[in-house]
């Protein structure tokens, strides 16, 4: 076979042209990032926002419901006349349960679709991946899920709870109930480990003994040894930061081993109404949860929210805390934009502090210093219908304190 010059030349030329194009492309990109010139189009009758949730992959089970409640809020606002006289148009994207995809899609929403703000994200990994994208492009993300705290970005509005609005109240509640020892069980990744370091610091300052701390790989389904350890340790209560399917195996093993909610209650921070069905009510009835919102919360705003959600998506669909936080975040964006009388990021950031909204969970207000919101904290007990009844709630909304600066015992934690 003869190797003609053309056969070599053609690919070489192609590669050269390709390199040239990428070079130009990336230079153009750098310029856009440097000036962070927003391409948001505010001239028409509509304004675009992004909805970025995992519609496929392992997180889809949770995040699809969040997407649904974002849509519900947008439809309600549009029916009510929109924002600054403009109808909201949602551009939906799938983060595919993969942090890198979240970052990539966020960039696409900001640069190509020119959205005014993005709503979404669930895992801390997805948020951490998106954070630099929103900061570099100077755009806005509304993040609706409770998380481990120790973060605050001017480009992210956190509408889920931070630790002092969920975990600390849960510990206060247990202490009030006379709990003197705890056993910690969690999935092996960032949220449970950070949450447990907060819990251990609290325990040390409040004379609560930590009798054990166990992590299982995500998706793990054998809890016989851990339940054995928990039973032998004989703690007053168990603090559960397990995620996903592991909860099913854990609670089945727990109740089969004869451990009851009366003798040794389990407090969970990531089981909401929709997960109870899969666990089986009989295995978890009477156990405790810590959240800011339950479907049973008795406010007129919540009755309207639950009714609207069920009418839109079906009577058998429960509402949960992250869904409520997502719904609320759309309204908070609307209120802030109207306060600022502008869709411009800098104007929205400047106007955000003090903006409040009568949410289903109770009135929430944006804290301008850290972009988190005030939230009412609630301890609930799972009832026989698979819903959660509030057994304790804070006196009004609690100010967000993501770095736990107001607690002496948390001194060593804020560093990381």
């Amino acid at each position: 076979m003869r190797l003609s010059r053309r056969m070599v030349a053609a690919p070489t030329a192609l590669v050269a042209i390709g390199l040239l194009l990428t070079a130009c492309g990336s230079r153009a990109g750098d310029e856009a990032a440097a000036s962070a010139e927003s391409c948001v189009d505010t001239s028409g009758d509509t304004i675009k926002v992004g909805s970025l949730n995992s519609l496929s992959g392992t997180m889809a089970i949770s995040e699809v419901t969040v997407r649904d409640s974002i849509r519900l809020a947008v439809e309600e606002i549009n029916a009510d006349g929109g924002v600054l006289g403009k109808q909201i148009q949602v551009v939906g994207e799938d983060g595919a349960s993969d942090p890198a995809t979240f970052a990539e899609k966020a960039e696409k929403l900001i640069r190509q679709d020119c959205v005014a703000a993005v709503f979404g994200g669930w895992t801390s990994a997805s948020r951490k991946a998106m954070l630099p994208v929103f900061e570099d492009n100077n755009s806005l993300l509304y993040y609706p899920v409770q998380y481990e705290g120790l973060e605050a970005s001017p480009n992210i509005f956190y509408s889920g709870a931070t630790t002092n609005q969920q975990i600390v109240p849960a510990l206060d509640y247990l202490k009030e109930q006379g709990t003197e020892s705890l056993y910690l069980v969690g999935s092996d990744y960032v949220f449970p480990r950070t949450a447990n370091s907060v819990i251990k610091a609290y325990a040390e300052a409040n004379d609560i003994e930590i009798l054990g701390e166990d992590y299982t790989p995500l998706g793990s389904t054998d809890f016989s040894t851990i339940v054995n350890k928990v039973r032998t340790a004989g703690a007053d209560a168990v603090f559960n930061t397990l995620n996903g399917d592991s909860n099913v195996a854990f609670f089945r093993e727990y109740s089969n081993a004869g451990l009851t909610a009366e003798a040794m209650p389990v407090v969970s921070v990531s089981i909401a109404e929709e997960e109870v069905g899969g666990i089986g009510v009989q295995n978890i009835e009477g156990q405790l949860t810590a959240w800011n919102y339950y479907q049973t919360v008795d406010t007129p705003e919540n009755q309207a929210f639950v009714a609207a959600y069920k009418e839109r998506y079906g009577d058998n669909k429960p509402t949960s805390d992250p869904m409520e936080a997502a719904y609320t975040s759309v309204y908070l964006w609307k209120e802030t934009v109207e306060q600022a009388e502008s869709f411009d990021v800098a104007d929205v950031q400047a106007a955000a502090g003090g903006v409040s909204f009568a949410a289903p969970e109770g009135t929430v207000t944006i804290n301008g210093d850290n972009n988190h919101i005030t939230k009412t904290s609630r301890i609930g007990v799972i009832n026989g219908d698979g819903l959660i009844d509030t057994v304790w709630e804070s006196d009004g909304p609690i100010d967000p304190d993501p770095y736990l600066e107001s607690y002496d015992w948390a001194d060593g934690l804020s560093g990381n």
Partner: protein
Amino acid sequence: MDVLASQLFTGLSIGSILLLIALGLSLTFGQMGVINMAHGEFIMAGSYTAFVVQQVISSAGVSLFVSLIVGFCVGGVMGVVLEATLLKRMYHRPLDTLLVTFGVGLILQQVARDIFGAPAVNVATPEFLRGNIEVLGVVLTKSRLFILILAIVCVAILAAALKYTSMGRRIRAVVQNRDLAEVSGISSRRTDITTFFIGSGLAGVAGVALTLIGSTSPTIGQSYIVDAFLVVIAGGLGQIRGAVIAAFALGVLHAVIEYSTTASIAKVLVFVAIIIFLQVRPQGLVSVKTRSLA
């Protein structure tokens, strides 16, 4: 002392679950040389069978026993369909079977998601299997005792069938020397199908059993498939006796390590132990001399 006894029971229980899952694999992988990554999804099919049967028969006790039979058939039929449509074209190409069955597994997961939804569904445990019995201070959960007995029964039936029935003799003959079996008048084609039906059916039974302890979700098979392959390899390919010993040994080892360390470390250490063991004894615990060249 109580702790030791409790962990021993835990280990036996983990072992019995591994065994139930590995038993079918020991037939299809060990004896036929097919790396069936969709075995986990046959387990999932068994779990969802238990869920569907329970929607029809409301008594959880009756539905469990009906599910065990129906689950065996559902798993078996799925296995036969897979064998007849795809695998029969690729015997002696183990890497191809791995890729193809992995793909089939992903498709089956998505099908389950479309039919039953992504969240886990709940299969109620019968009243008589809830709770535990205490023997000399050791708490034995009833559902785990039931699985232990079920595993023993399955092994006994399978071993007896292989040893005493003509079908069993045909299977063993084909495994030991396919060509010689053929010239002796045994249809290796029919034997392959039978073997696959039984192996996949056992996956269905395992799936039904798993609903007693864990979640019923599209990814349930994924949590067990790797461990099951380890049991089959450590036990010695195609050796039921080896699979039994390996499953219980791994279960007890895991339980003991996990009690004194953590779940993640236990998983790693058990894995390391298997690797070291296979360095010393690559053929697994039990190996049988055959006249075949393989």
